[in-house]
């Protein structure tokens, strides 16, 4: 009680306190924003979870605000009767392969950008952004046309190639920053102390590169899992990935509960990976990795 009285008098004696005004404004903005974010994220995801648990016997029709009863039958049904398990297997085989291949392809170029100066370097760096500015479906369709005429029939290999090209810009960018953070004095010190190349690499390069390598692997992995255009155009109908399955439930025959199940399967692992990535980027340098083109 005493404390409350004291604060009240304090407030009364200085009615115009700008610091408090700013604090109040920020708090109001924050409440507003949290409301918006709730509508923006919480409500949609809650509805998706509910839809994936709708009991097919009772359904969820207007005017029910919530489904009358919940069950995991849908999950079982989608799992046992559709191509989802195969699609998950495909996606999760493809994505790590893409991530590793992309990293291997990107590293020499990134090393070159970070540690050499040569005429036309700026232009070369802009060129690496090409895959980002070609619309995805144009790339997908004419890539499929290209591989037909080249006579490549493996869908896995085709999507792998396309995904690598598509996600190389991210890997090159991240690894360029990482190679740039390798300190020349550490390299010199290691060599001065008589280290062999492998030891130099472990002592001077590895600590600086590791966050970048992991970040690049995670980002490319997530992108590959999510990628729809190429997986759909090049893969369909023989090679299904999770997004193509989701598309089949959203397109002409719209099966809401199934789409809910697939959506969650697609999103949840990626969110977990993102959380891991956030940590990594904080330990590396987020401002630089965020990247201004």
């Amino acid at each position, binding site marked *: 009680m005493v404390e409350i009285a004291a604060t009240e008098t304090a407030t009364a004696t*200085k009615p*115009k*306190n*700008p*610091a408090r005004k700013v*604090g109040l404004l920020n708090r109001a903005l924050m409440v507003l924003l949290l409301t918006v974010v709730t509508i923006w994220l919480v409500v949609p995801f809650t509805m998706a979870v509910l839809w994936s648990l709708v009991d097919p016997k009772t359904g969820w029709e207007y005017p029910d605000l919530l489904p009358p009863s919940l069950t995991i039958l849908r999950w079982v049904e989608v799992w046992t009767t559709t191509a989802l398990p195969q699609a998950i297997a495909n996606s999760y085989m493809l994505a790590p392969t893409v991530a590793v291949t992309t990293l291997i392809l990107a590293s020499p170029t990134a090393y070159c950008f970070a540690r050499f100066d040569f005429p036309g370097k700026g232009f070369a760096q802009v060129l690496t952004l090409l895959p980002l500015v070609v619309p995805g479906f144009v790339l997908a369709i004419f890539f499929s046309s290209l591989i037909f005429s080249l006579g490549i029939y493996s869908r896995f290999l085709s999507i792998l190639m396309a995904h690598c090209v598509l996600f190389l810009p991210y890997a090159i960018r991240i690894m360029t920053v990482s190679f740039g953070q390798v300190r020349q004095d550490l390299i010199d010190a290691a060599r001065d102390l008589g280290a062999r190349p492998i030891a130099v690499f472990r002592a001077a390069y590895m600590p600086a590169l590791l966050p970048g390598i992991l970040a690049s692997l995670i980002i490319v992995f997530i992108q590959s899992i999510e990628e729809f255009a190429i997986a759909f155009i090049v893969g369909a109908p023989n090679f299904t990935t999770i997004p193509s399955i989701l598309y089949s439930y959203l397109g002409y025959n719209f099966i809401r509960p199934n789409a809910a199940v697939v959506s969650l399967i697609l999103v949840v692992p990626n969110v977990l990976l993102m959380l891991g990535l956030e940590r990594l980027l904080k330990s590396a340098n987020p401002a630089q990795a965020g990247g201004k083109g």
Partner: protein
Amino acid sequence: MTALRSIDVSKVFEDGFTALADITLSIEPGEFVTLLGPSGCGKTTLLKIFAGFYEPTTGRIEQDGKDVTNAPPEKRDTAMCFQSYALFPHLSVAENIEFGPKQNKVNRDERLTRLNDLLRQVDLEQHRHKLPNKLSGGQQQRVALARALAMRPSVVLFDEPLSNLDAKLRESVRREIRGLQREFGFTAIYVTHDQSEALAMSDRVVVLNGGRIEQIGAPEEVYQRPDTAFVADFIGSANLLPFQRVDDHVVETALGRLTVSGPPDDAAGFLCWRPEHAEYGVTEGDNVVNAAVSELAYQGSYTDLHISPPGVPDQRLHWPGPASGVSDQVTFRLPPEHIRFVRGKLG
């Protein structure tokens, strides 16, 4: 009338840190006042309160007798020179200087007159179309100065403007700032942690420590007659020595019994004396000290000697001449008129 006045100003930040406590300070028109203190003493916070970037937690700010406590910086008749110069990187030298007058709707002719005059005064006429990053540090500093002066402010606030310049340049920009101040007649408040800058430039020095004013006075005053142990130590180098009062003119210290010119306020406390005030060649009489030299360092114009009386910090002496002339023992006299009692203690 005072140009700028702070009355009982204190500032507590959101995290609970008290940056300033009860600062009352009056600055006369045309005066050059330096806020001097170590980092974290609140000098920049006070400057930003004068500029309007911070509003005080309690207390008032008056400019020309008007209360401006809640006026934002864009509405105040003050202009600031920033530590990092804070030039607008996308605007040319001329555009930077014209920014303020344009914002304040000064008409074109007047604006151009001011621009051309200022460019000549800071000697940057041939650089008017360059971007700031094409200029040297000293040139950038002069653009920042011209940009502030283009507002024709009655008060110019300087936030450690020379700290990013090398020593030689510092001196010339220092002279330039004083010159411009005399010419334009603005009131200057100058924040620095460099005591030599403060002593060389100011009409008055305000020594701040831990958010409080330690002493206000002319440069000679704060140097010759420091009130507190902190001021004595921070401005120049001073030796601090604990004493016990014997009578009105004699105190007992680690250097022995010393005669002093005035009576100490307390039975015990600190006195201070400066290394350059030790007199050599006197071996008899009052206040003559003989001690072993514990350390010495040649400084060019003098040699810095340390003696280590028991139980007190090392005392330093300036020995006129090279180190080779110093023996193991040193004998010197402390003139009573240069022994001063100070309040507080160090650390």
